């Protein structure tokens, strides 16, 4: 296990993927974000696709920095959390702006964690921190590997602490990651960014 203090000041973008059980896990992490956060935070949470998203309002009270629904071409501001809108893939473009797409589902999902992580790896390279949480899907494993290949940092929630461990187990089966931590550990890491 690597010392998490090495990440301080080196991360421009945090990407987080979660599925079943993700709302509670995300609340715990969002609570940990310091008001001085420099990195932007992009989140994909799998949701029923025809539901109009109210997650920004759900999460905001727990979070010291602004939480927004991602809108196409919005610049990724430091210290701001962006949520993938229901039924859109969330990506980042070369200008470090939000890019949305309605391309086909990936792992039966739109938004897909892989799509976000792979786009983040392309643009933010080694300044990416990717976090994969609870979920019952294969989504995220390939994306996490892409972040690692690009020199970014990878974190998965300790499967023994995940409400639904399938997603993180799939990622661990695919290859090594930098940190395997319970939510408190991930929260501590985020607090130091």
């Amino acid at each position, binding site marked *: 296990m690597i010392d998490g203090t090495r990440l301080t000041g080196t991360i421009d973008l945090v990407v987080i993927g979660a599925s079943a059980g993700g709302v509670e896990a995300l609340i715990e992490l969002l609570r940990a974000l310091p008001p001085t956060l420099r990195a932007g935070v992009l989140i994909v949470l799998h949701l029923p696709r025809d539901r109009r998203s109210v997650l920004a309002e759900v999460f905001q009270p727990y979070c010291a920095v602004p939480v927004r629904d991602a809108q196409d071409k919005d610049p990724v501001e430091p210290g701001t959390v962006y949520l993938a809108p229901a039924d859109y893939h969330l990506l980042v473009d070369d200008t470090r702006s939000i890019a949305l797409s*309605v391309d086909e589902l990936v792992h039966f999902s739109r938004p897909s964690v892989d799509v976000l992580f792979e786009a983040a790896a392309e643009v933010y390279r080694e300044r990416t921190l990717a976090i994969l949480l609870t979920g019952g899907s294969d989504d995220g494993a390939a994306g996490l590997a892409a972040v690692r290949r690009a020199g970014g940092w990878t974190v998965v929630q300790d499967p023994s602490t995940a409400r639904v461990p399938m997603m993180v187990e799939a990622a661990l089966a695919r290859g090594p990651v930098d940190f395997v931590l319970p939510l408190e550990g991930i929260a501590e890491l985020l607090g130091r960014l």
Partner: protein
Amino acid sequence: MTSKDFEIELHLLLDAIYLKYHYDFRGYAMASLRRRARAAMTLFHCETLSQLQDRVLHDPEVFPDLLDVLTVPVSEMFRDPSYFRSLRASVMPVLRTYPSLKIWVAGCSTGEEAYSMAILLHEEGLLARTIIYATDINPHTLRRAEAGVYDVDRIQTFTANHARAGGHSSLSDYYTAAYGRAVFNRALRQHIVFSDHSLATDSVFAEVQLVSCRNVLIYFNRELQDRAVGLFREALCRRGYLGIGAKESIRFSPHADAFEDVARDDRIFRKRESA
């Protein structure tokens, strides 16, 4: 292959496509284009985009299939039902005052949006006096749109969307289902002109009262998006309407001041008097 090589090869491929086939993807948003280019490499069994470029240049049969990958058509009827509710509530009452109507569905893909618009107009008693121009850059997709044939297993979603869009007819009035397919009625199609048009390279072709262009601008970079919105502005009649996708914006466009909000959440705008 490094990421830098991939970027170089992607630019070269887009140049090659433009020079040879006059399709201009150079102003597309790179994030999604990269994914599509990678999907194309897999589909055509190419190790690199340079290999794909070689095939595209020298085998004319490859290009239509590549175009399908680069323009991945994904749509459904009455997507975002509240958009259609807003059109019904805020736009149709004004459109009703025109003796004849022209509507432009830009980037119509396989036709779902054009048929949705036709059904909405029919319900409002306006279809008989309307021509809908449904345009796209992909001739293959346009042929599918023109056929108006959809897998019957998609009809359930279409029907639910239509009901949530405030539809006061039954969607089943508009199609005939047989052999796992739903064929939309010729009566709708008679009011839709499907044609080839590129927001990247073509100019305005008609004056219209409403432009509906949803989830197309997300695939364009800022400059191309500005060009497209400029075309819509030019095509719109005095005080005409523009509808875009729920997560799209014209806020940062040089044309932003030409439009006022009609239904902010549903991204429906109206051209200002002076514009």
